[in-house]
């Protein structure tokens, strides 16, 4: 599992600088290094982020701002993050789109298409259960943080039962493989399977763009309303990175 790290932490933590018992010259040097690295955005290898470190925390969540806590404290107060604001210093990190999801032990092998919203404001899904939908505006499996959401129909009047129907029975630890448009592969392991009533799901949490990297596979399940033609629940599988 890749823990969420800010560029400053990613740089400071492995540096092997022993933590001083209190704010000392060592802490100041460490923070200078951390700040410089955050500013020079290239030395935070492994933690590329599409938005600069100056980004404000999402006002709609209680997630604490990563930057202030990433830097050592000083006797006089909280360090202020600095960034080079020049337009030439802005970096746009290309997103790797997932194109295939496999869960070999469950016989799942689906292609993935990037989708936005349908007319009702829900995630748009291809009609064929063998074609999954990745929410294109949220994280990808290769993003530095947040939940990559990939969903597929559990069934269809036209195509019949889909392979995602078997997700409901996925044991914890089940390997999941995602292939990107550039050919790279990310592996995950199932951490939890939840069947949740649709009316009670916190979609902002499901589509969370912050926090640890994870893969969220969604389909329908539970009871079916034969009058409306809809399932009453979603099956939500959370998988965490294994490599």
């Amino acid at each position, binding site marked *: 599992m890749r823990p969420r790290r800010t560029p400053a932490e990613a740089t400071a933590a492995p540096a092997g600088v022993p933590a001083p018992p209190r704010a000392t010259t060592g802490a*100041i040097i460490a923070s*200078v290094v951390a700040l*410089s690295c955050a*500013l020079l955005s290239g030395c935070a290898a492994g933690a590329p982020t*599409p938005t600069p470190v*100056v*980004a*404000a925390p999402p*006002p709609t969540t209680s997630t604490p701002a990563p930057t*202030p806590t990433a830097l050592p404290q000083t006797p*006089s*107060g*909280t360090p*202020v*993050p*600095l*960034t*080079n*604001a*020049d*337009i030439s210093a*802005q970096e746009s990190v290309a997103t790797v789109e997932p194109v295939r999801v496999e869960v070999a032990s469950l016989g799942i092998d689906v292609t993935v298409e990037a989708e*936005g919203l*349908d*007319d*009702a*404001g*829900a*995630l748009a*899904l291809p*009609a064929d259960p063998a074609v999954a939908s990745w929410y294109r*505006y*949220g994280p990808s499996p290769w993003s530095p943080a947040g939940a990559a959401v990939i969903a*597929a*129909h*559990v*069934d269809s*009047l*036209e195509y*019949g*039962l889909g392979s*995602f*129907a078997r997700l*409901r029975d996925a044991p914890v630890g089940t390997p999941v493989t995602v292939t990107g448009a550039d050919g790279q592969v990310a592996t995950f392991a199932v951490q939890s399977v939840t069947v949740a009533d*649709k009316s009670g799901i916190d979609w*902002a949490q*499901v*589509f969370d*763009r912050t926090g640890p990297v994870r893969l969220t596979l*969604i*389909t*329908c*399940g*539970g*009871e*079916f309303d034969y009058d409306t*033609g*809809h*399932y009453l629940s*979603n099956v939500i599988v959370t998988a965490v990175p294994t490599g």
Partner: protein
Amino acid sequence: MRKTLVAGIAAGALIALGGALPATAADGDAQLSVLHAVPGVTVDVYVNGALTLDDFTPGTLAGPLALPAGTYSVAITASDAADASAPIIGPIDLPLAANGNYTAVAHLDPAGTPTATLYTNDTSTIAAGQGRLTVRHDAAAPAVDVLAGGAPVITNLANPAEAVLTLPAGTVSASVAATGTTDPVIGPADVTVAEGVNTIVYAWGSLEDGNLALAVQTIDGLHSNPGGVPAGNAGLAATNRPDASAPLWIGAAAIALLAAIGGVALRQRAVAKSGR
């Protein structure tokens, strides 16, 4: 006053918030960022009389700082000043409301005199697939038009006004021209307008001195989310299906058979349902 010729390079030095300010963020705090957009001058920034930004260089964005709601007095001095008694700019009062998001910009007025402007950043939720582009005129220059792909999208923007657009997420080739003209005085430059992000572009510097430039601030986390995942319409995997005691594949086969028999009607129903 120490001058620096290298604008836009952040000092990287440790700067500390003054002891008058709290060290930890709390619910309801305002977010304050500070942009130094006065060319050629390294400064110190004092908040409520305490040195808060030391040796702050042009083109550098500081923050965001989480501050309790209230009014803060900000003075900007030469970088070798001993205290806030002889400011270059201010002291000015910054009234910060609870949960507000602000950027204080030290910049030139149209005549080239240093001044400061407090902007309120729009952090309202943005529709899926869209980004917000905010453009602020903080340069010693007359009113301008902002061109995207050569066509004006903002007209007659004067120092220190701002304009806010909502655009499909993507990259905009932006340039700035004197209002009513299309000959760029800045750019064209690629501006990334990311989904769910307020991308704030500052035009700063001096037209007369030939050092006009663009600075960028981004505020993310403003995105909206899908309101559901409607991922099934046949009931084949339902726990309450009439044949729930039978193996799943029998139910699937039965429905598939029905679908084959009832072909046209069921296909029409599938089309009708698929949009939900």
